[in-house]
């Protein structure tokens, strides 16, 4: 946003300040690969200051309080930052303490890969894992990067196959969702892939607690899932400061207009990314598409013009499936992930909802694009902010009919 807005707003009229808790910007999509030794944590961090343009002030401090009525942000150390316009992008984090018993086994038999430390610790654990049941688990929706647990599952299958240990490892995917995915077309595609790789799925599992001593997940309905190693995505919640400021819902996410990205309660506060309560996925691509639209709305707000309701919930996500391939899904609020080709009909080059090598290469190449284009506010060619139907095949009216 800083990069997008510094270009558009006259420095004589508008000062831009970015506040973040430290100077370390992490490439979060890379955390998935750390447990498997594909990336090291060092490769995933850059200084925040270096990513910001000239003419933007950077304050590296924890945010203690936001006062929406007074229009002030209070940071650790006592500095008060008054604002005329505020963009909140405080994200979401895992909160394992929300599930009784989860922390009892933490970093012993229960691991996460949503944090730098967690994924590094898991790398060591996986290297030493010689057999037993590996449970990959989603505690409660929504979570950020909802495909990551599936990716982790596929990569585990590949990892243990490489090490000739796959027969000794029983991989089970435990989810509160009705299947691998909520939407039917993608659920069928991904479910079939899980089947093929001999990965058990335990759906509709509402986790009541973890019995770390007995190594079991216990569901509200009485079902239990035994494991030797639990890789979990704990409950995701927004930043604690959102609760302190009285700005969030029961998960500390901020009620936001789904199309304009303005907060529902405060006219001069806009919300971006995981910190919103929008029904779109909490995904990096979503933030990217939101950002370009939000920049336009900030300009309109400043000019006193009506905001444009342009954001359509567009998300575009790679789903790593191991073995050098990945699936690409492209969807929005209205349209579920559909098969076809992206971004262009027929010529693609990326297949949708089907594993492909080019998608896997795309996922890896994305790290460069992230640091050098996306964060700097440079447009990504051919990828529209609003989802396009071009290249997609809608399911036919009569299932079973051939063309």
């Amino acid at each position, binding site marked *: 946003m800083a990069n997008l807005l510094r270009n558009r707003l006259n420095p004589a009229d508008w000062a831009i300040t970015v506040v973040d808790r430290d100077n370390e910007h992490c490439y979060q999509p890379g955390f998935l690969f750390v447990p498997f030794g594909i990336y090291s944590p060092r490769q995933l961090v850059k200084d925040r200051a270096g990513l910001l343009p000239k003419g933007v002030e950077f304050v590296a401090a924890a945010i203690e309080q936001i006062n929406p009525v007074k229009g002030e942000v209070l940071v650790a150390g006592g500095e008060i930052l008054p604002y005329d316009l505020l963009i909140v992008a405080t994200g979401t984090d895992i909160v394992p303490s929300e599930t009784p018993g989860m922390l009892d086994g933490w970093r012993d038999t229960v691991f996460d890969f949503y944090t730098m430390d967690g994924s590094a610790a898991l790398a060591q654990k996986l290297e030493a894992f010689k057999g037993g049941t590996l449970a990959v688990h989603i505690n*409660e*929706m*929504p979570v950020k990067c*909802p*495909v990551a647990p599936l990716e982790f599952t596929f990569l585990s299958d590949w990892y243990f196959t490489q090490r000739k240990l796959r027969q000794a490892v029983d991989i089970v995917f435990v989810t509160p*969702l*009705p299947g691998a*995915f*909520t*939407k039917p077309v993608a659920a069928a595609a991904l479910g079939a892939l899980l089947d093929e790789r001999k990965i058990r799925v335990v759906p*509709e599992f*509402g986790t*009541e607690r973890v019995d770390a001593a007995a190594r079991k997940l216990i569901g*509200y*309905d009485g079902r239990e899932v035994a494991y030797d190693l639990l890789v979990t995505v704990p409950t995701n919640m927004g930043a604690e400061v959102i609760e302190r400021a009285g700005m969030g*819902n*029961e*998960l500390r996410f901020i*009620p936001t207009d789904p199309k304009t990205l303005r907060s529902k309660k405060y006219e001069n506060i806009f919300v971006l990314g995981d910190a919103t309560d929008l*029904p*779109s*996925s909490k995904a990096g691509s979503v933030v990217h598409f939101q950002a370009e639209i939000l920049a336009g709305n900030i300009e309109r707000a400043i000019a006193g013009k009506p905001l444009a309701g342009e954001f359509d*919930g567009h*998300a575009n996500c790679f789903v790593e499936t191991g073995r050098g391939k990945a699936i690409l899904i492209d*969807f929005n609020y209205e349209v*579920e992930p559909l098969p076809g080709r992206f971004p262009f009909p027929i010529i693609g080059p990326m297949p949708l909802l089907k594993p492909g090598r080019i998608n896997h290469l795309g996922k890896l190449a994305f790290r460069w694009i992230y640091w050098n284009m996306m964060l700097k506010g440079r447009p990504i060619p051919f990828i529209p902010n609003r989802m396009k139907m071009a290249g997609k095949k809608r399911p036919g009216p009569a299932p079973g009919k051939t063309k």
Partner: protein
Amino acid sequence: MPQRLFGTATVDVDADGFMTDFAQWTREVAAAIAKEEAIAELTPAHWKVIEFMHKEFKEIGQVPSIRKLNKSGVVTTKELYDLFPSGPAKKAAKIAGMKKPEGCV
């Protein structure tokens, strides 16, 4: 738009069987949907949840999540799973005549 007949009432539903027009909901419709969801009878405990869902939707415009229901004090998560087994937020929403709860993935 597909339609279903519940008792004497005809209602519009989406592909998953969720009502698309809340004005058509009645307690009779709710009981009929419940039966299809393998809930033989709606007890006062069920109705408390349904009424809370209506209130939330009216005030906030969103179908409450399991967490919201738990925090509301109307019902605990454990009770919710007992009342509406297997995917309770979705099941309760369907019986309450609400749209399918959001959540892409």
